[in-house]
């Protein structure tokens, strides 16, 4: 994926121009990215536990933000109901562990798959509405799941439940990690969860980047420029949107499973929280920069820093976030990365196709 692909050049035979996606900075950034990921993989060896916990949160929030951004920023699907899938992921995990007796680590991908399966009928339903109506219907669906799961007595009903210690203490790989880093099982559990969260964010960043550089990305740009026009040249808009909705649901399920495995406690209100899983996520995307891959990542880091310094102020903290969010939307709708990128011309994850005149061709033309 690191090689500069002259993706889908329309007329390669003429040799006068070619379509490029990659930039020089972006190619250099691949090396940096590999180093960053390597450092993050080995972080449990030197980072403190609070640091790891913050990183877990950054990874999970960035994953959700990237998915929301993929939907709203590229596919025109504005959802205020992603908490439905985060909550379902958490509840699927708890059901697999408590009711099914499965291993916690293996339950994570299974829970995400269950969520993806559930998102097919849910998507079929919410896709009957468009635009702003779509947004509110996704929210109603999330409320329905919250109210339904509050009826599940085996998982604690409305007050929720905790994971039994016996289940979390013999998770696959726990002894190995405990021995490797010489830590107790609680810390070892957190390290495994940290890796799962890191894996998720790398998967989501890679997935988004791959998707946006592929034919799908081209189709999405066409949809954004004009949906009817895109349809008329053969872009199957609904299918692409649905596929993105499914991908986002799967990732949200993954995030929910990992988050609630870490907290070891779930309740309908926490699992299906509009504030935690949608309002914060929208704030992250808007602040970082809509319709960029870099933006949601920067937004998530900034959000966790803000949270650590300001969350003691209770409602005032949320008022500050609200004012900041509205202010950025009205005055600098491109967000931090959008403005930075426009100013410097730097794209770390370039997805836009540019036409380059090949110098050889211009010589030939003479």
């Amino acid at each position, binding site marked *: 994926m690191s090689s500069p692909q002259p993706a889908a050049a329309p007329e390669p035979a003429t040799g006068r121009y070619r379509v490029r996606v990659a930039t020089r900075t972006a190619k250099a950034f691949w090396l940096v990215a590999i180093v960053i990921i390597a450092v993050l993989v080995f972080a449990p060896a030197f980072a403190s536990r609070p640091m790891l916990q913050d990183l877990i949160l950054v990874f999970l929030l960035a994953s959700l933000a990237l998915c929301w951004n993929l939907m*709203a920023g590229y596919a025109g699907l*504005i959802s*205020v109901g992603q908490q439905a899938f985060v909550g379902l992921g958490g509840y699927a995990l708890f059901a697999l562990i408590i009711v099914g007796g499965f291993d916690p680590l293996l339950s994570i991908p299974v829970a995400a798959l269950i969520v993806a399966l559930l998102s097919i009928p849910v998507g079929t*339903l919410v896709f*009957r*509405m468009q*635009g*702003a*109506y779509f*947004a*509110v*219907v996704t*929210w*109603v*669906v999330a*409320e*329905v799941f919250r*109210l*339904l799961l*509050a*009826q599940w007595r085996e998982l604690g009903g409305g007050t929720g439940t905790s994971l039994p210690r016996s289940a979390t203490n013999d998770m696959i790989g726990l002894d190995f990690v405990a021995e490797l880093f010489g830590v107790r099982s609680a810390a070892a559990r957190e390290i495994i969860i940290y890796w799962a969260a890191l894996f998720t964010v790398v998967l989501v960043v890679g997935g988004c980047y791959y998707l946006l550089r592929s034919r799908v990305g081209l189709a999405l740009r066409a949809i954004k420029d004009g949906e009817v026009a895109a349809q008329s040249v053969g872009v199957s808009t609904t299918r692409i949107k649905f596929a993105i909705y499914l991908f986002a649901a799967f990732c949200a399920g993954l995030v929910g499973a990992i988050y609630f495995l870490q907290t070891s406690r779930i309740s309908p209100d926490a699992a299906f929280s*509009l*504030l935690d899983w949608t*309002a914060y996520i*929208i704030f992250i995307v*808007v602040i970082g920069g*809509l319709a960029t891959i870099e933006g949601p990542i920067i937004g998530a880091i900034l959000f966790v820093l803000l949270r650590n310094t300001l969350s003691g102020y*209770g*409602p*005032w903290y*949320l*008022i500050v*976030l*609200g*004012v900041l*969010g*509205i202010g950025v*939307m*009205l005055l600098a*709708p491109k967000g931090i990365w959008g403005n930075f990128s426009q100013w410097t011309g730097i794209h770390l994850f370039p997805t836009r196709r540019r036409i380059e005149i090949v110098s050889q061709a211009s010589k030939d033309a003479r």
Partner: protein
Amino acid sequence: MDYLNTIVQGVLLGGLYALYAAGLSLIFGVMRLINLAHGDLIVLAAFVLLAMVSALGLPLPVALLILLPFAFALGWGLQRFLLNRTLGDDILLPLLVTFGLQILIQNGLLVAFSADSRKLSLGALETQSVNLLGLSVGLVPLITFAVAVVVLGALSYIFYGTGLGRRLRATSDSTEVVQLMGVNPRVIFAIAMGISFVVLTIAAFFMGVRSNFDPSVGPARLLYAFEAVVIGGLGSLWGTLAGGIILGVAQAIGARINPEWQILAGHLVFLVFIIVRPRGLFPKQ
């Protein structure tokens, strides 16, 4: 007999939901905007009424009458100075800005009034009931329903019987064409939001009298209002009343079967409507 009672209670509850929905429906109809802060604005208005009663010692109905012109001005100003800046081809911006307002209002109310549950009081009137079809029906729910009908009738008159209504409908049809006729859509939008605020303040009055409220209950009101609007048919005022009644009856029947199913039953009936009649009962055109 018991079920008849449930249905009558549901219909009357539907009157309250129609009041929640009327202001939202109006905004929908005129500017294709969903005001995600609508429910929180209702709760905000209820808290202002509470403060007027407790700080100024006014009787509640007088407080409502005094508040209405200020509500219009606030709605007008919000649209004129904030929301008009978000309108364009992209629906993302108005949605996100009203979503942000929702967070601001909820937390502002938390700071000002704490998370305690409150109620507006109409005194002895609240406990009175009348005999209807052999059923004992509370006077306040009955008045709520009657006011909902009057409000929808008044909106209907404004829409279809006045020059302002003609401009509102024309703006709804095409914001470009009305400009050729010398109408500034931004002014029309501000007036529409002002009217919406008047209606939601009336809704706040009855919400506060009929049930407890606290800063967190706004979003649920928004969802009921939205559901009533969609069930009734987007942009149809009387459809909104029908939608409110269907939602109210569904909730009342759900609550009768199991008190925990009240809200769920309403949401499920709404989702069934999306599958069966996504354009609602009385769609425009």
